[in-house]
């Protein structure tokens, strides 16, 4: 127990400043939490769905949960069920074998049902293309609010994408 406590004290708090959103999305770091609250009225919960990724994106989604990115500090949290989620974070080119499961997961998610597609292959299949086994992107299976580019995108890009999708979802409802 002492060793554990000593280690905790020694390491301290390595959390870093949140990302600055580019151009139109630019905002104060402190506003991020406020924005999440303004859009949803509460914290943001995310359900991750792998629709055939190579698991590279999963490594980075794990990383975005590490102490440096302080995700839960903004009230953003990954949850175990789509029924508890505001957002689906989808990876992979849309493996046809996952199409039904992805659609059902989407159907099980309550509004606002935001969808963030993470990784180059979610857009058009990327390196896996559109084939007998790959739908060539997840957009044909579920509606996507925002794509995050990269193979895999770095954690900071995923974090930016989450925040941008929240805003995009808000605009979608405002229209």
């Amino acid at each position, binding site marked *: 127990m002492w060793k554990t406590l000593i280690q905790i004290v020694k390491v301290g708090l390595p959390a870093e400043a949140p990302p600055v959103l580019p151009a139109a999305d630019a905002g104060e770091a402190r506003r991020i939490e406020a924005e999440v609250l303004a859009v949803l009225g509460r914290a943001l919960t995310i359900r991750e769905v792998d629709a055939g990724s190579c698991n590279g994106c999963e490594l980075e989604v794990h990383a975005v949960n590490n102490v440096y990115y302080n995700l839960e500090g903004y009230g953003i949290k990954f949850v175990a069920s789509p029924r508890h989620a505001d957002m689906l974070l989808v990876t*992979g080119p849309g493996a046809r074998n996952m199409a039904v499961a992805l659609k059902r997961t989407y159907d099980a998610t309550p509004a606002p049902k935001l969808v963030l597609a993470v990784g180059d292959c979610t857009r058009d299949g990327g390196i896996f293309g559109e084939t007998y086994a790959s739908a060539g992107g997840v957009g044909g299976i579920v509606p996507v609010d925002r794509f995050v580019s990269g193979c895999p995108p770095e954690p900071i890009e995923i974090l930016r994408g989450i925040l941008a999708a929240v805003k995009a979802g808000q605009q979608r409802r405002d229209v």
Partner: protein
Amino acid sequence: MDFGGLALDLTQLDAPLPIWRVSSRAEDWSETALLVAESGGRLVSLWASDRRQGASGSFTVSAAYATSSGLLCFELPLDGAHMSYPSLAGIFPCALRMQRAIADLHGLVAEGAEDTRPWFNHGAWPEDRFPLRRDFDGAESFPACQVRDYLFVRVAGDGVHEIPVGPVHAGIIEPGHFRFSVVGEKVLRLEERLGYTHKGIEKRFESLPAQAGYRLAGRVSGDATVAYAWAYCMALEGAVGGNAPERARWLRAMLLERERIANHLGDLGALGNDAAFAFGLTHFMRLKEDWLRLNKRLFGHRFAMDRIVPGGVALDVDAPGAAWVVEQCDAVEREVRTLRRIYDDHAGLQDRFVTTGRVTPALAKELGLTGLAGRASGFGHDLRADLPMSPYAELQVRKASHSNGDVAARVFVRFEEILESLRLIREIVTALPPGEVLAPLPSLEEDGFGIGWVESWRGEVLVALETEGERIRRCHCHDPSWQNWPVLEHAVMGNIVPDFPLINKSFNLSYSGHDL
């Protein structure tokens, strides 16, 4: 070579490890498998190729066996209209699912196999169409078929019920379906159904120039991108008779060891977390993040994707870079030793780890458990130590091993391997041979064949590459998860359902690498 009384006509392939290619006859196919098994060899991979347009004019089934003297790749051309070959599952149980995949993708049937249910074909393409045949157009897609019923093995008895899990899981992990048959909390039987991430990688290779295939190989399983890219490049270099310069081989080994450490750090954290010790996840993930950030700074990519290229590597390490690497290795070693003491002394953690998910050495041998999990079950193979190629021959890798075969043993092996890989990385960067890091490969004119075989962090990956001119005719990628997924079904028997995530994580198998 005289192999157990059989005179074999062997051709040694151009590869940094001893790899032979042998043409087999239908009547010898099972007998050679038996001889390999009796001499302590193991089945590494089983796959098929459509060579109807080639010299043999037929489909070919290939089996790659690891023996003490190297890899033996037996090729069985199927006569004319013959669409079947003798099943190897009675000798090597791990062959069963590989045979089911061959049936789905090539339409070739294993004679005498007990289980002939489809494996990858969940209804995305018609049952009478076979994607890896040359006359199948990979770009063709089919109207979504009805989800077909898959016949799981039913367990009957008083109080037995089923728990279906997946394909979408509760954590941030890949998709697959697990069907538990339980009494109360106790697992009587687990049956896996995989193939959900099948995205047609092997068909996709056929549309790529051979020089470009390393990028796709690097995305077979993202967490082993370095190992796959190296295996692919080894296969291509063998096929064309090229060679990576010495400095490039050392840098490849450095990347492979860095990949091993990154994954082991993540797994050790996740294992702590799955045993309700979130402290472990926090600290190991912090170390992993530092580790990946140095990758980014030195190689331009956090996982060093696309940095191993045909003929060498697309990076170099200068003196300041080497100093950063050594400095970071020292820091990580100090922290890992501290965390290891904390894990070892934590009664709650050890209570969850010890005796959980046990695979005995006898079962490991029988089922062909491989890689890290094999080494934790007294079935210790490690290509880096058993058949060392440059630079591993010079570095003298110490193989980690344990014989308890439980979660604790797999944790132990990971700690040992982190420390050993830290030593290797320090030695590599301080003794890097001078010279070029890239030697352009000769151009491909004739048909080529090469095999790459690399010990990834999870176990041995294999890439078998057939080229025609500049193009890929067939590229088969094999992940060690093929061997280890069926063993996981045994490892959870008799354990309680809440220990499944812990046991599963202690193997940490790849879905994508298996599903292709």
